[in-house]
C-alpha cells in the first residue's frame, strides 16, 4: 500500500467504497419511507443505496440501516490534524525533566467545573490508579496533584490555583448538552486571564470526550485533550510547555541572560 495517498472506504474489496449508515426519518413506515431513505442516501453520495433494514418506531417514525458505496475519494495529504508536537516521556523521564526545569515539584490543580459531576476523566488522568494501565499524575514523584473533584466553581478553582501556586490547571468536562462544556471552559479561561498576569498564569488544559483538539485558541486554553489521552500524554505536554514557557520568559524578560 506504499504511496497510496488516495483512499476509499473498504468493505471487503479494495476500492469498493462501502459504508453503512443508520438514521430515522419522521415518516410512517411504508414504501414511500423506504424510497425516501434511498433518496437521502443517494444525496449523501451512496449510490446504489441498499435499504438493508427498515422498522417502524411508533406510528410516526421509521428507522433505517442503509448500505452502499460512496464515490468520494479521501486524499490523505489534505488531512489536517493536531499531531503530538512534544516528545512522549516515561514517568521517570518526566520526573527528571521537571527536576531539571523547576528544581521543585510541578503543581497541578484539577477538577470538574460548573455543574459537571463526571469525574471519570479527571480521575483517569490525576488519580494514581490512572487509565488503561498507565499510572495517573499522582504517581509522578515530581508532580504535586491537587484534585478538587466535581462541581468546582470557577472562582474556587482560580483561588485554589493561586493558593497552591499551580503551574497548570486541568479541567475536565463531560456534560455537553447545549455546549455547556464550551461555555464553561471559556468562562474558566477568561477568569484566569483576568486573575493572573500573562506570564504568571498557570497553563490551562481542558479535556473531555467531546472537545475538538483544534479548539484550544477559541476556548482560550493552552491545550485540549480529547478521547484516548493518557496521563503520560498530559505529563509530557506539561514538561514540554513549561520548558518552552521558561525559555521564552528568559529570552523575553532578561535578554542579556539569554545567551548563558
Amino acid at each position: 500500500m506504499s504511496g497510496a495517498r488516495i483512499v476509499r472506504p473498504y468493505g471487503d474489496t479494495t476500492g469498493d467504497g462501502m459504508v453503512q449508515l443508520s438514521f430515522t426519518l419522521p415518516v410512517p413506515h411504508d414504501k414511500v419511507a423506504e424510497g425516501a431513505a434511498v433518496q437521502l442516501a443517494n444525496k449523501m453520495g451512496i449510490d446504489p443505496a441498499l435499504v438493508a433494514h427498515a422498522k417502524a418506531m411508533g406510528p410516526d417514525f421509521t428507522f433505517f440501516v442503509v448500505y452502499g458505496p460512496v464515490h468520494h475519494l479521501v486524499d490523505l495529504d489534505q488531512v489536517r490534524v493536531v499531531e503530538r508536537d512534544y516528545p512522549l516521556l516515561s514517568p521517570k523521564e518526566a520526573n527528571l525533566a521537571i527536576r531539571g526545569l523547576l528544581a521543585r515539584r510541578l503543581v497541578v490543580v484539577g477538577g470538574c467545573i460548573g455543574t459537571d459531576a463526571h469525574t471519570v476523566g479527571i480521575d483517569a488522568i490525576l488519580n494514581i490508579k490512572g487509565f488503561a494501565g498507565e499510572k495517573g499524575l499522582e504517581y509522578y514523584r515530581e508532580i504535586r496533584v491537587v484534585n478538587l473533584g466535581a462541581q468546582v466553581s470557577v472562582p474556587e478553582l482560580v483561588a485554589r490555583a493561586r493558593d497552591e501556586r499551580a503551574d497548570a490547571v486541568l479541567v475536565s468536562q463531560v456534560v455537553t448538552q447545549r455546549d455547556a462544556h464550551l461555555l464553561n471552559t471559556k468562562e474558566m479561561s477568561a477568569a484566569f486571564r483576568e486573575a493572573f498576569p500573562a506570564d504568571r498564569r498557570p497553563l490551562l488544559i481542558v479535556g473531555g470526550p467531546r472537545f475538538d483538539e483544534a479548539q484550544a485558541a477559541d476556548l482560550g486554553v493552552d491545550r485540549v485533550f480529547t478521547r484516548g489521552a493518557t496521563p503520560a500524554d498530559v505529563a509530557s505536554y506539561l514538561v514540554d510547555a513549561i520548558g518552552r514557557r521558561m525559555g521564552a520568559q528568559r529570552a523575553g524578560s532578561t535578554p542579556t541572560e539569554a545567551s548563558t
Partner: protein
Amino acid sequence: MTPQLDLDEAMVRTARRLAGRAGQPIVDIAQRHTTVSVERAVLRLAGLRGGDADGTPWVNRLLDAVRADVGIENGVALPVWHALARGAAGDLEELAHKAAIGEVRFEVPTGRELVSARSGARRAVRTGLRRVDARRRERDRLVRRWGDPPTKPWIYLIVATGDIYEDIPQAVAAAREGADVIAVIRSTGQSLLDYVPEGATREGFAGTYATQENFRLMRAALDEASAELGRYVRLTNYASGLCMPEIAALAGLERLDMMLNDSMYGILFRDINPIRTFVDQRFSRQVHARAGIIINTGEDNYLTTADAVEAAHTVTVSQLLNEYFAKEAGLADWQLGLGHAFEINPDLPESFRLELAHALLARTLFPDAPLKWMPPTRHMTGDVFKGYLLDGFFNLVGALTGQGILLVGMMTEAVVTPWLSDRDLALQNVRYVMQAAGGLTEDFRPPPDGFIARRARQVLGESIELLERIVDHEHGLLEAIADGTFGLMKRPADRGRGLDGVAVKAAGYFNPATEVLDRSALTARTGAPGPRAS
C-alpha cells in the same frame, strides 16, 4: 422465582447489625439538627406556594425573614403561626409578602401564645399531609384500575430534554414503547440550588428542573398514557441536593411514584455538607414513606469513580446503610429500590460472572426490595456495536437475578443524549433478553462452591470488614466519609455546601410535620399497621 445464594446467615446478621451501629449515631445527629430546607418543607406542606417577581419562592422569602429575626433553632412553625395568630397577616402567603418587605417582626411565642401557635401550625400542616395521604390512595386506586406492569423487572427509561413541554411527548412515546417507569432527569446543577424553582420550565442543562408544576404536568400526561395503555406508568424524579425535603414534599403532593434518594450521594458527589445531607435525608425519607413512594438509591455512582471489582463491597455497605436509614424513617422493603450497576471492565476475564455474583449477592441480601439495576456507562466507549452487546449482557444479568427495576442502557451512552432510535433499539434488546431468557432463573442455581458463590461470599466478607472499620472510627461513619471510603471522595463533616443552613435544635423546637412523621415511622418500624398500601 427469585434465585438465591447460600449465604451464611450469621454473616448476614452481622452485616446488618454493624450497619445499624454505624447508622445509629447519624440518626441521633439528624434528630438533633434542623435545616432551612426541612423548615421550608413544613411551609410547603402548610400550603405556601409560588414565588416573587424574581422567581424566589415565598417559602424562601418567609423562612429567610424568620431566620433573620429568631433563627431556625425553634423551628419555623412557632414564629410563623404566632405571627398569624396575632393578625400580622390573613394567611401564609400574605405573611410571606409582608415579611419579604420587612413589615413583620417574628418572635418565638411562650405560654398560651405558644399553645395556640402550635395548634395553628398543626392544623395547617395536617392539611398538606392529608393531601399526601389522598394522593397515595389515588395511586393505589389507579394501580388497581389500570394494573401494574405484567412482568418484572419494570422497564425504566429516562427523558432529559430540559423543556417540560418536550419531555411530555417523549415520555408518552417512551411509555407507549414499553417503559413502565419514566424518570425526568433534573437540570444539571439543581442539586446545588438552595430553592426549588417555580412553574413550568423550558430551560435546563442536561435535564429539566424539578418544580411542582412540572411534576403536575408530567403526572397528568402519564395518567392519560396509563389509561390508554392499560397499565399504571410510574413517574420518577430526584429528591436530592440542597432541597431534598421540599422536593420530597412536592413529590408526595403531586403523586410522584419513585424518587432518587440516596443517603450519601449528595455528600460524595455534590460536596454537600454531611450533616445537612443526613438531616434532610431523614425528613425526606419520612415523607416518602408516608407518600408510598419507592426510593431509588445511588450505589451505581460509586462504581463510576472507583473500580467495580475492588469497590464492590462499598456498594454492599452503602446498600446496608441505605436500608438501615430507610427502615428507620419508616420505609418498607417494597419501597427500597437499592441501587447497583453493571460497571466491571469488560476486558477483565470472567467479568460477566463477577457481575452475576454481585447482582445475586444484592438480590439475596435484600430479597423483598425491588432492586434497581443500572446499565454500563463507564466502559461504554462510543463503539455503539460493542455497547449494544454489553447492554444485552447487562439485561441478561437483570433477568437471571430477578431485579425489580431495570434502567435501560443506551448503546450511545457517552456519545449523545439518547435518540429516538437508540431508545427503540434498547427496548428491543431488553424485550429479546426477557422473552428469550426471562425464565432462566428457574434453571440457574450457582453451585455453593462455585466461582459466583465464592465471589459473593468474599464481597460480603469485605463489606463486614469495612463496616467494622467504620464502627471503629472515632467519629464513625462521618469520619469514614471524610476519609474517602466511598467512591474515593474525601468529605469532612465541617465542610461542604449548605452547612450554614444547618442549626442545632433548641429545647423548645417544634415541627408539626416531624411530629406526625416520626409517629408514622415508629408505627412502620414496629410493624403495627401504618398508612401502607400493598
